[in-house]
């Protein structure tokens, strides 16, 4: 018996004490360090489910399904085709319907920011005269609350979407499905963050009467705008397009500008619209959410797949969907605390829990999954460019493949990590990394910071247990 160990140059992977690595490096040995953490303790049910899923016949079935899902996600081609009022385009929308972020949630369990946004929206829609009256109405049962996701929509932060708000209309040129999301309100003290004073309502009215209609008319002239291409360019220009959208906003504005000037509005109104878009880099933030939703919906509903097609939060619970279940089977766990820098005057204890449909961006592979593309916002993850690179590489551990259509230059043009596999999340104990804004815990205040958050492990645990059951029962 001879050994390969003596015939090749010693090259070590060190799992544990870093002093061993230092000693080896001092001797000129190349060492890769594993920053080891203890594995998560798993329940017997989960262990049994993982055993089932790792049976070769079942694993092969799941792998094949997952392959189909990622192919659908990657070959999706989302384009912007218009801006229209929710009541006119969103499936199932009524005047008394309020869409919200996250999985389903009852009024009494809603977070402060969501309640603030709902009451503001009811006043904006003329369904109540005051916030107090709106609060009473919201609790009365006369208003239908439903998740954005269940209406082909996504909504940033509280995600509150009412009948007369203008929506992006994003169409998948490959698969034909359509996705919607409302317009950015730009500032911090805004409806989606839970603020609802008169300045917030006034802005929504202007968006409904001037901003939305002008965008709508511009898109009728433009026809369509290729959002997949714009997103690919924006990522190469230093966005990750969840918290940093400056490049995406410039690119989108560049496409819209010539059409906006051709609309039948006054120069004064056009100037206001241009100034409003200029007032925040976030203008295109919702746009990329709709792109992500559009591609992921195309990958949803493939039997036996363990790929996560939705991650979303309502400030009370975090919910995911797996492609295996067509429709809306939610796996939930408690919403988590977002950790990150706070705006002046606010402290961590003021934070509401994790909220918004915007984690759809991470589900698709941008945002927290593409931190390496956006070194300018590494302060968000409290560290170095290296830590951003590591965080982005880490996400390959829990995903199925990479998306060659959207690449990250600094990682040698590696594609986005695509197709979160719930099996891998459970196996590695590594949770998806989401970067997101922080809303105040109380209604009526708004955004107070930004930071990082992980989903609760529970939703992946219950999804995997259910999947083991589903794949063996047919």
């Amino acid at each position, binding site marked *: 018996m001879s050994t390969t160990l003596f015939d090749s140059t010693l090259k070590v992977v060190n799992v544990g004490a870093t002093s061993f690595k230092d000693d080896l490096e001092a001797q000129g040995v190349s060492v890769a360090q594993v920053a080891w953490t203890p*594995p998560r303790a798993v329940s017997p049910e989960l262990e049994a489910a993982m055993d089932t899923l790792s049976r070769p016949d079942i694993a092969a079935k799941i792998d094949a399904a997952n392959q189909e899902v990622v192919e659908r996600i990657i070959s999706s081609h989302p384009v912007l085709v218009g801006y229209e009022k929710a009541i006119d385009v969103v499936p199932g929308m009524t005047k008394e319907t309020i869409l919200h972020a996250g999985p389903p949630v009852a009024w009494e369990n809603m977070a402060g920011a969501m309640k603030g946004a709902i009451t503001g929206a009811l006043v904006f829609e003329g369904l109540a005269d005051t916030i107090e009256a709106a609060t009473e109405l919201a609790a009365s049962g006369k208003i239908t609350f439903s998740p954005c996701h269940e209406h082909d929509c996504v909504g940033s932060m509280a995600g509150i979407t009412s009948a007369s708000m203008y929506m992006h209309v994003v169409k998948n040129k490959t698969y034909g499905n359509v996705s919607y999301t409302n317009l950015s309100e730009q500032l911090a003290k805004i409806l989606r963050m839970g603020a609802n004073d008169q300045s917030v309502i006034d802005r929504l009215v202007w968006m409904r009467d001037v901003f939305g209609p002008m965008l709508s008319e511009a898109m009728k002239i433009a026809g369509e705008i290729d959002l997949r291409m714009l997103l690919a360019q924006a990522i190469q220009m230093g966005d990750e397009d969840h918290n940093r959208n400056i490049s995406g906003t410039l690119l989108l504005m560049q496409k819209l500008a010539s059409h906006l000037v051709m609309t039948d509005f006054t120069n004064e109104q056009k100037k206001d619209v241009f100034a409003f878009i200029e007032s925040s880099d976030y203008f295109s933030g919702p746009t990329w959410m709709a792109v992500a939703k559009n591609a992921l919906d195309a990958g949803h509903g493939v039997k036996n797949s363990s790929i996560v097609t939705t991650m979303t939060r309502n400030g009370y619970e975090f919910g995911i969907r797996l492609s295996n279940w067509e429709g809306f089977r939610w796996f939930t766990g408690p919403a988590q605390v977002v950790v990150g820098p706070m705006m002046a005057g606010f402290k961590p204890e003021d934070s509401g829990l994790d909220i918004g449909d915007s984690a759809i961006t991470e589900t698709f592979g941008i945002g927290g999954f593409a931190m390496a593309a956006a070194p300018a916002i590494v302060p968000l993850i409290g560290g170095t460019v290296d830590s951003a690179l590591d965080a982005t590489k880490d996400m390959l551990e829990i995903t199925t493949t990479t998306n060659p259509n959207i690449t990250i230059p600094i990682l040698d043009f590696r594609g986005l990590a695509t197709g979160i596999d719930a099996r891998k999340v459970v196996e590695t104990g590594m949770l998806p990394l989401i970067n997101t804004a922080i809303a105040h815990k109380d209604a009526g205040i708004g955004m107070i910071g930004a930071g990082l958050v992980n989903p609760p492990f529970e939703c992946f645990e219950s999804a995997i247990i259910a999947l083991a059951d589903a794949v063996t029962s047919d």
Partner: protein
Amino acid sequence: MTVAARISENTYVDSMSLMALSTRANDVDGVNQAMVGMGTDMNKQVIESVGLMTPEVQGAGRSDLITVVDLADGQDADEVFAAIDALRATGPGAGTGANASFRSLSQALREDEDSTLVVISVPGEHAAREAKSALQRDKHVMIFSDNVSLEDEIELKKTAHDKGLLVMGPDCGTAIINGKGLCFANAVRRGRIGVVAASGTGAQEVSVQIDALGGGISQLIGVGGRDLSADVGGIMMLDGLDVLAADEGTDVIVVLSKPPARSVKDAILERAARAGKPVVACFIGPSGSTGPLEQDGVTVVSTSRDAARTAVALDGTTLDGGSEVDLTGHDVASVRESFTSGQRYVRGLFCGGTVNDEVFYQLVAELDDVHSNVAGDPSTRLEPNGKSRAHSVVDFGSDEYTQGRPHPMIDPTVRAARLVEEAADPEVAVILLDFELGFGSNPDPVGAMLDAIEKAKATADEAQRPLEIIGYVLGTDGDSQNKARQTEQLHQAGVRTVSDVIELGALGAAYVREGRN
């Protein structure tokens, strides 16, 4: 409330950095609240809402940087602005230069495909899982961790054996592969003697003695202390023998272990006899130094000293002197006569487990009433964490002393306190100490004990007792701690030194043995 604002015109910093900076600025002394941001409408709105608005802030443009603070009473604004500027200059991540590292072993193995060996030092209950995944990817494994279950050890070693891979450990402290020291190894000369060892400090001792005698190490494979138990059956010792037998860089093989189970011993000797090159089998045990014995073509010895000497001789080096320890130069008679009538005992306080064992067997061979905390026989075993009795040796690396604290080779605290305690015992004449050098060990093992040595000497002086402290420095001049420098420190502190473990035990016994010169 004293609000002070400063507008830096045409100064751009991106918003995410500024939010992080604001958070840190809130912690500056003399600041009740701070906000640093560009003069955008959004930031002005935020500043307004927290009550820090001033006319300057109101007038700031979008390309101006606003720093606005609510100052504590009597706090100078310029000082605070300077402190915030200093924070901005350093940035949150400045100077960390974190190396890229991997989140999991599977990630590391995928991205670093040509690695050959995985070293595992995670808590024992998790080590087997990591080792399994390394073996799956066809990597050799060294498991430094202890507390791995026997079942896991057997399964891992069987898997490795079937795949032609090595599993060094669990509880393997020392290895030298291709001239590179792993975990607790010493900087020894590269040579043609291969070692496969079930004992960490035993392997260290044999390798430094070979080095001292002019020989060198081709490979040193550790297998962990349980490998030669009847349950594990010496799977890796046998495989280690085989790979060294096949290794063209190895001319002589040393096998090192405590006396194994009979069946395992037979298997090893049988395999050794077929190695095709000279094998020295060293089973460190109670027989003491009996000199080399030939058995089926294998040279069997029972001390690290004989193992090293025999191997070097087989490798073709002619050695001066015999295998007998020479104590001339240690003033045995005069030292013994200097002790007061009550001073009768020798106490050994050791970091190295095999050092402890070898000295114990030396003392047992020469003296009566010898005890140890790791003695197999309950009648000579010290209470856990208990006091010494008569002649005693204590292994400070055993579990009772290492629960929740670093190994004594790294952290001298427990042994240092015990040294002072022993020196105060009027029955103690001689104290024996070992100092392991090399990778992984304390950067200055003697230096770390000097205070305690001084105190021990002072305690004995006050009581007008001579106290003989004998130190053994296990290492080489190539070790970063440097053997010559460590030895010099001992001499300056009045500590006598010896040149190997066997001499340490022999001299300790000689100083307290009655009725012989």
